[in-house]
């Protein structure tokens, strides 16, 4: 997307397995929307009712291969000495920089699905809130955590 956000952009991708997780999430959400829609079909006039299952099915068939792939390609991260650089988003592209000196602590979480695929989600906490890097490979996540901890420690004296 636009050159504003590609300047010296971060280069690391999420784990390739993230696409699978997101595909499952997307498909699950579509099926759930379809079921809810069909159950609540009384709210719409007769002529509009097919939309309630047609839209989720269309989203399922067309979106499942495309959207997670798109999201995955757009998600980039990089840890530099100056800070953590994130760039992500499909409809809205967002570039975030978190200075190392502001990192308070780092958290890694692994759900059941993530554990079975050897993935992990890293959360970076600052005094203003937290930032999430989802679905990294477990090795990357562990490395990232130690790297951030080490950098934050050395920077703490200067900041």
């Amino acid at each position, binding site marked *: 997307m636009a050159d504003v956000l590609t300047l010296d952009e971060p280069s690391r991708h999420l784990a390739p397995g993230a696409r699978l997780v997101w595909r499952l999430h997307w498909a699950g959400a579509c099926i759930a929307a379809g079921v809810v829609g069909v159950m609540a079909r009384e709210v719409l006039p007769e002529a509009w009712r097919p939309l309630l299952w047609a839209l989720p099915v269309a989203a399922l068939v067309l979106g499942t291969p495309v959207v997670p792939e798109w999201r995955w390609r757009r998600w980039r991260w990089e840890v530099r000495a100056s800070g953590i650089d994130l760039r992500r988003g499909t409809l809205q*592209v967002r570039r975030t920089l978190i200075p190392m000196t*502001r990192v308070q602590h780092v958290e890694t979480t692994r759900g059941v699905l993530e554990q079975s695929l050897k993935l992990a989600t890293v959360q970076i906490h600052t005094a*203003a809130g937290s930032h999430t890097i989802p679905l990294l490979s477990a090795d990357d996540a562990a490395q990232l955590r130690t790297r951030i901890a080490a950098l934050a420690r050395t920077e703490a004296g200067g900041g």
Partner: protein
Amino acid sequence: VGERLHPAAIAVYAVQALREGAFPLITILAVSVFGGGLDERALLRGLAFAAIGALGATVLGALRWASTRYRTDGETIRLRRGWLSVKETDVPLARVQALDVEQGPVQRLFGVRAIHVQTGGGGAGGEIVLGALGAAQVARLRELVASHRPDALSDEREQAPERVLTRRMLLVGALTSGQLGVILPVLAALSQMVDDLVGDPTEGGRSAGRLLPDTVAEWALAGAGLLVAAWLLAALGAIVAFSGFAARRDGDVLRVRRGLVQRREVTLPVARVRAVRVVEGVLRRPLRLATLRVEVVGYAKEAAAAQTLFPLLPRAEVEPFLAALLPELADDPGGLEAPPARARRRYLLAPTAAALVVAALAALALGTPWLLIAGLAGPVHGWLRWRAAGWRLDDGRLAVSSMMLARTTVLAPAANRESHDLAQTALQRRARLADLEVAFGKSTTARIRHLDRDVARGLWLRIT
């Protein structure tokens, strides 16, 4: 082992226990008094419950007082609480950031003070709270802390610059506080009540329905009365919260005193102040008055009033005020640069569309096309937001103003940020616009929408 608190702590703890148990107690009381109709026996029973409650609370207070000890050796302040399970808290003297003094109604009655021992950890209240100390005990504690951390104490002899909220400003502030937060639940409760009474024509409903106004004029009158009541309530709340408000710079810390019933002195280390917010409420903006708030890292969980640096001052005096008390963050909230002219359309578009949809749905549901006029609120709000948006980055100092209901201007050195974002939607990309967001703390994010792409990028890089 260690020293007891002043015996007035029994009363302090008893009141605290009563307050914690207040809701169930009042419920029991109300049920017992009104449950079987209001007769003499029920009243007596209620009084008996109240007496038992008060006695129980006093016993609890006495037990808590008897099992609470504090001790200061050369290096730490230690608080030991509890009877069955003992809890000990140690605060190294070198870590004490401040001794905050609090004097609630109970403490004032006995002429004692509550001391909050604050460390760098921040959080609500102090790490150690000593509920009631006599004058001699306070003096000893202060002396001890002074020998380790001289800047943690307020020095009453020194004439540091202090700003006091005048009575006139307190009154103006109270009358213009106009907190929608107070009014909305009242309105919601009323509409629910009306719904219950009108929508359900049972016997009780009909008899109560007669109490309701039935002409438009009466409805308008009732609504106006309610608004006035809510407004007075908000004014009273502001008077109680901000009476005797004074702010003072004292070396590395800011000291803020306030409160009518609960007197409190709060110490804010300047190093922890990340940003200043200049808030101009809807009613105050025409009077060119503003509230100053500070984002203090580590204090984000404390009540909002704890972050008020000064409740009300003329907008023109914001910069001189900050120059005297907080020169590290002083800046002029005026004279900001607006987003480019082509961004105006974007500011108007989204609220207009949203308001039109809502108005159309409401008009359809209620069958009155006149409600469509309410859709005009969208473009008006969008236009006001466009007018309020502005930014400046000068000599490393960032100033960003934006508006939802109140206009808020964030003033802070850019280096104080916790993180910063540059964001662009597909539509903004075509118009070569982008959003910039700079987060300074949990409740302060400077956000400016629809800047020129290159300007936004330049800002983002300069902050990096």
